[in-house]
């Protein structure tokens, strides 16, 4: 396993574009701390974002995992191109000739992807913990370590999304087209949802079906945290809108994403096995 990771590491780390993107990604993850620095000081109006409760435990786990998940697009580019480049450079052929089995080849990619997700999760955990310790109003251990399921959701979300990227890379074999396909797929899920609700079934039923779509199910793992802030909820109460939604992640939502992850990895393996190079 270490050998497979080392193989992939040599391929990635010597590629300047990948290296820059990976480093930028982790810098961006850290930069979420900069939100703390947002301060408006306009005469009588003083606004300090960090004081609005976004860094309160356990809310910070929710907020940070939601925001940092947006940066995953950087790694998506790296992952799609690390797969597609194997085809365009024909190095996949040479790897197999040199004695890597197709299973090992895929496994080295999957392990890399899981490592990316794991490192990101650890990173977000560390940054959030530090930010929380500095700004949170609550510092009891039991509160700090409550709601940690958001970190698990973050990890599963990344693994699922990256497996999808891997699969697209293998399927399309060209990085630019694979990324295009990814965007197309995102739109497609919404279009299907729209068509279902409009013509086939009721909107609530369509919403239920939509939760089973791959990208949508990944999105569902971490729901938007904005309306959970007490400041926002207070405004909601004033205008007569109940904004107290259900923010928790349920086991079946994990299951849907894990199911898609397995499907994408298995389909990648089938494609790899069936194709002549």
């Amino acid at each position: 396993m270490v050998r497979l990771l080392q193989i992939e590491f040599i391929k990635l780390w010597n590629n300047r574009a990948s290296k820059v993107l990976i480093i930028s990604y982790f810098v961006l993850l850290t930069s979420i701390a900069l939100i703390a620095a947002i301060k408006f000081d306009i005469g009588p109006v003083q606004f300090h974002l960090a004081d609005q409760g976004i860094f309160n435990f356990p809310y910070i786990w929710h907020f940070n995992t939601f925001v940092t998940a947006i940066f995953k697009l950087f790694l998506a580019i790296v992952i799609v191109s690390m797969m597609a480049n194997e085809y365009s450079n024909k190095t996949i052929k040479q790897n197999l000739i040199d004695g890597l089995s197709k299973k090992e080849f895929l496994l080295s990619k999957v392990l890399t992807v899981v490592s990316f997700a794991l490192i990101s999760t650890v990173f977000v955990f560390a940054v959030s913990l530090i930010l929380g310790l500095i700004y949170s109003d609550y510092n009891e251990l039991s509160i700090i370590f409550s709601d940690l399921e958001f970190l698990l959701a973050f990890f599963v979300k990344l693994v699922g999304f990256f497996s999808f990227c891997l699969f697209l890379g293998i399927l399309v074999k060209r990085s630019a087209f694979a990324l295009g396909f990814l965007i197309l797929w995102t739109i497609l899920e919404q279009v299907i949802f729209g068509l279902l609700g409009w013509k086939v079934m009721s909107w609530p039923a369509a919403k239920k079906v939509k939760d089973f779509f791959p990208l949508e199910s990944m999105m569902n793992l971490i729901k938007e945290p904005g309306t959970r802030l007490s400041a926002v909820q207070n405004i909601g109460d004033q205008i007569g809108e109940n904004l107290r939604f259900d923010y928790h992640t349920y086991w079946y939502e994990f299951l849907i994403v894990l199911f898609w992850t397995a499907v994408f990895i298995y389909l990648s393996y089938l494609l790899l096995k069936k194709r002549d190079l």
Partner: protein
Amino acid sequence: METILTVNHLTKKFGLLTAVSDLSFTIEKGNVYGILGPNGSGKSTTLGIILNVVNRTSGDFSWFDGSTSTHEALKKVGAIIERPNFYPYMTAIQNLKLVCKIKEVPSAKIEEKLKLVGLWDRKDSKFKTYSLGMKQRLAIASALLNDPEILILDEPTNGLDPQGIHQIREIIKTIAGQGTTILLASHLLDEVEKVCSHVVILRKGEKLYSGPVDGMMASHGFFELRSADMEKMKELLETHASFGKINSFNGTLTAYLKEEMDAESLNKMLYDKGIILSHLVKRKESLEEQFLSLTKNN
């Protein structure tokens, strides 16, 4: 003799086209094999199948004694297929280190192999800056990293300039001289003739011949002769039991042997009959002549 590769009734179909049809042959340790055949005769497909990159339609093959999986066996094989494929953004050293990781061999041999192919000076240049000849030489260095039991080369001189071709041939000769088993696919017959001891001949995916180069045709070779009295010599040879066809062309007599005879005894015999030779050469048909007559007969 130790068997390196056994191929049994291998068939590959691409849709309606049959690229390889019911092919069987074995590769023994220590020999230099050539796979011959015109373009599109299934050479590269056959190599692709035994190298795990092309799926077979039917039949099977086994490496060594057949007890290891193909990808494990390939770690003891060095192979270059058509174009050299490396990571363009990595240097020669980085690329070779990666190959060492895949083959699970220590990276200590990198220097030795790069020196063997004459690329040590350019070891830190990126692969994409190499010329085609250099890329091909790097591919050979990479294939040799594990001191392979067998080296497989598919059209190694394709697209190279005469100097490049010469360099690659010299390297192949050096390696063959070290006793490594080599399997060389080519449509360049003189290339194969220069290095190979055994051949497998393919045409349209079918095997026409496999065995030693000498045994390709039941032929004992021929003599090229010149002397002052050509007519008398011709009459004499026509009545001799050892000779078959006799041609006269450009003042030289070409006499084909029906049975083995060495040049010395022919010289002595003719001298005893009063014919003094000014030119005597004993030759075998070139591989090209043999190949053409073999593919024509079928």
